[in-house]
């Protein structure tokens, strides 16, 4: 899945030529490696609220090199813009223009992260305007950043502290290489649930996680990432994919379960396998999905029904079983793979987009049902990801699809997996009913 263009323009003559011609200049993104520091370089924490002070103190406790004011000409690893107390659009200019002056000092693969409050919890039109304004501001800023730097936002619901567990979890995720291909996105923290991991390199230690569609592509990357983060993984795929499934299972020391998820008893089979073999079930990742593309004018019933059956009906049925099970009551996590097609639409994918839009609706509606036992459900919506499937696209279409995002490149399966691993962790306990896009800020869609 090599992106030859990115390699070409990253160094030497190719870099000079691309610059002179004004061609897109993607860089190799900083991706998480076990043991890697959260971020290298000083972190500027901007903002004069109590929330900003608390956050700066916490970051200091993590051993980060904190600045409250930028030093001239000093390269910054990240800028955290704390706007939790902003009440009016006119309050924005001072902090925003202050970090503006530091933009040129942001290191390659740097981070800008805003911390603000949700619009729906705004007490007055002016504060709502300010909060919604941050949305437009951040998405625009993300498009201005270069060299692998990203901008993302954390939205605190109601009166949540800037240091609530999942706000800190999200901040760590955005600062780290785990969020390499997440750009121009917001994560809403809706409760003070959740806890930061004891071992930052093994945030899923002791967890048992099921991944559907784990034989190849994004599913295999999810299995590898959950295993790297400490989880025992049950890998599910259709019997016909069993050879690839076995290979991945043996690589990640998991167990392979050959199972068609559209079977009526799929949910029970998954729970039984996890509990009998591994003693518990903490995480279910609904990754299995198929495409049967056709313009609606040419769509037949088989293509439509099979996509709905695998991509959404199976998830709904399995979730029903999970929610009714006594084995899925200890802060369980469900993470579904949606798609930017389900948000922005895609020509030739009415069936697929209906199924992936369905996933988003399911996630939002299921979240309140899991609240009482500390469970969460979220979706991750990948954009253009470099897989065997996208490698088969015609060259020109593939090249175009790769570049129409703020990072000017396709994402890796690992990027999707990292977002899922974060949402599956204890640190994300205060995040539920959310859809996180992993798309490098694709230029279409929300």
């Amino acid at each position, binding site marked *: 899945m090599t992106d030859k263009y990115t390699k070409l323009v990253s160094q030497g003559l190719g870099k000079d030529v691309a610059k002179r011609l004004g061609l897109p200049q993607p860089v190799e993104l900083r991706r998480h490696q076990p043991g890697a520091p959260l971020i290298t370089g000083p972190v500027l924490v901007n903002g004069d609220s109590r929330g900003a002070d608390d956050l700066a103190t916490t970051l200091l406790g993590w051993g980060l090199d904190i600045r409250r004011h930028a030093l001239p000409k000093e390269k910054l690893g990240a800028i955290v813009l704390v706007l939790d107390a902003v009440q009016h659009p006119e309050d924005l200019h001072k902090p925003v223009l202050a970090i503006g002056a530091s933009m040129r000092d942001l290191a390659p693969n740097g981070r800008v992260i805003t911390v603000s409050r949700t619009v729906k919890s705004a007490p007055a039109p002016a504060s709502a305007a300010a909060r919604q304004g941050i949305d437009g501001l951040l998405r625009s800023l993300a498009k201005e950043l270069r060299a692998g730097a990203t901008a993302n936002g954390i939205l605190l619901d109601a009166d949540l502290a800037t240091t609530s567990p999942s706000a800190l979890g999200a901040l760590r995720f955005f600062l780290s290489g785990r969020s390499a291909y997440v750009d121009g996105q917001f994560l809403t923290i809706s409760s003070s649930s959740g806890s930061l991991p004891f071992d930052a390199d093994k945030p899923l230690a002791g967890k048992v996680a099921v991944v559907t569609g784990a034989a190849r592509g994004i599913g295999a990357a999810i299995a590898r990432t959950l295993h790297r983060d400490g989880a025992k993984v049950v890998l599910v795929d259709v019997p016909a994919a069993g*050879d690839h499934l076995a290979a991945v299972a*043996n690589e990640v020391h998991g167990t392979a379960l050959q199972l068609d998820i559209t079977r009526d008893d799929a949910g029970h089979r998954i729970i039984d396998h996890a509990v*009998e073999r591994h003693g518990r079930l903490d995480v279910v990742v609904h990754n299995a999905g198929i495409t049967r593309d056709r313009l609606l004018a040419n769509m037949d019933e088989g293509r439509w029904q099979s996509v709905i059956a695998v991509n959404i009906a199976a998830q709904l049925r399995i979730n029903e079983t999970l929610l009714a099970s006594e084995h899925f009551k200890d802060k369980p996590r469900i993470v579904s793979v949606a798609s930017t097609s389900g948000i922005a639409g895609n020509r030739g994918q009415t069936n697929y987009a209906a199924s992936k839009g369905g996933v988003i609706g399911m996630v939002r509606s299921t979240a309140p049902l899991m609240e009482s036992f500390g469970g969460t459900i979220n979706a991750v919506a990948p954009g253009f990801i470099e897989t065997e499937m996208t490698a088969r696209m015609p060259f020109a279409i593939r090249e175009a699809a790769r570049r129409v995002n703020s990072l000017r490149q396709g994402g890796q399966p690992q990027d999707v997996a990292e977002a899922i691993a974060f949402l599956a962790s204890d640190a994300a306990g205060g995040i539920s009913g959310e859809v996180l896009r992993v798309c490098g800020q694709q230029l279409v869609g929300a």
Partner: protein
Amino acid sequence: MAAADAPAGTNTGTNGFASAERSAEQDKGIQGTRSAVIVGGNRIPFARTGGAYVKSSNQDMLTAALDGLIARFGLQDERIGEVAAGAVLKHSRDFNLTREAVLGSALSPETPAYDLQQACATGLETVLGLANKIKLGQIESAIAGGVDSASDAPIAVSEGLREILLDLNRAKTSVQKLKVLARIRPKDLAPDAPNTGEPRTGLSMGEHQALTTAQWNISREAQDELAFNSHRNLAAAYERGFFDDLITPYRGLNRDSNLRADTTLEKLSTLKPVFGKNLGSEATMTAGNSTPLTDGAATVLLATEEWADSRGLPKLATVLDGEAAAVDFVHGKDGLLMAPVFAVPRLLARHGLTLEDFDFFEIHEAFAGTVLSTLAAWEDEDFGRTRLGLDGALGKVDRTKLNINGSSLAAGHPFAATGGRIVASLAKMLHEKGAVDGRPARGLISVCAAGGQGVVAILEAA
């Protein structure tokens, strides 16, 4: 070792007690104090020779079957007590086939392994041998298996050329070497390919079975019907997902390539006979009611109950016991593939069981005629009295309990892999059946083998 040999003056009370206990155990045969459970199995789909696995070696296929088993049961880096497997058609490079497959798999490299060969009974014999080791307390876990490739069969050079090449190796000077090479004649260059012929009779296995089929008056219709049922049952088992946790696809094959789900009795009846054409009687054995040459591999995970429990692994069935037999086919006293006919009554007698006490029968379908001749012999009163030493016929096998998920006629028969296929499938069937009339569901396995041999076994639901 016996208490009677103990020198005088030792604690006779204790010795006397131990002696009584030991002899009671000896009466039961080697039962041991613990059972060997079948945790599950894995095989690759069987492929007709020259098909999907044409480029796969025995080692490739056995490793693939092992890796699927490891993935299914989470055995990565596990040190298994012992792995035993074998192949009937073996290259000289495969002298340590099973150990090499283990080293290429995800198991711990500290897992010992050995090869075993008993023709088509190889797979079942590995299960019985390893089960015995578990029962005796020698090992806690084991993997039994078998593999065969008729596609990648070893071809030897002719005996003449082999001698010349060995002499060439011993020759020291160039002149000596040239002299040796000059001995090569065109006839020496013809390769020596393996065949299924019996060394002592020159007859192929099919021709041997044709003699037996004719002897027991087995009709063409009965053979075709058995073949038809095999295909129908195997197809139905696939359809309901029976093999979802028994098979891992390999090289693009998801199902046994010999399976003809749409075959009919009419189609089978149109096939021309291939064996027994010179016997005087009507030839009845066709390519449809005989197994084709096949490539494939199968494995079975065995363990003590404690080992399975501590890993949260299933316990499908226990290996109760097994028995081997052989017949004098060379002098025509019995048919080449009839040894199980004699092994089963001996095994049943040891356990006080009759054919009525079984819920499943897995009789390997080398040929439809083999199965039907076996059943006929057991139903024959005269044979029972004169040859089996019984009061009458051994009994009747309930056909609704016979090979209910298909057997070798449909699945194919990669010689050494068949035992593993049958044991894993039967163990799952027994587990699903559970208890019958307050006793564990029980299954009988019968596998005939070249050389006039046969191995049979009893499994019970765990």
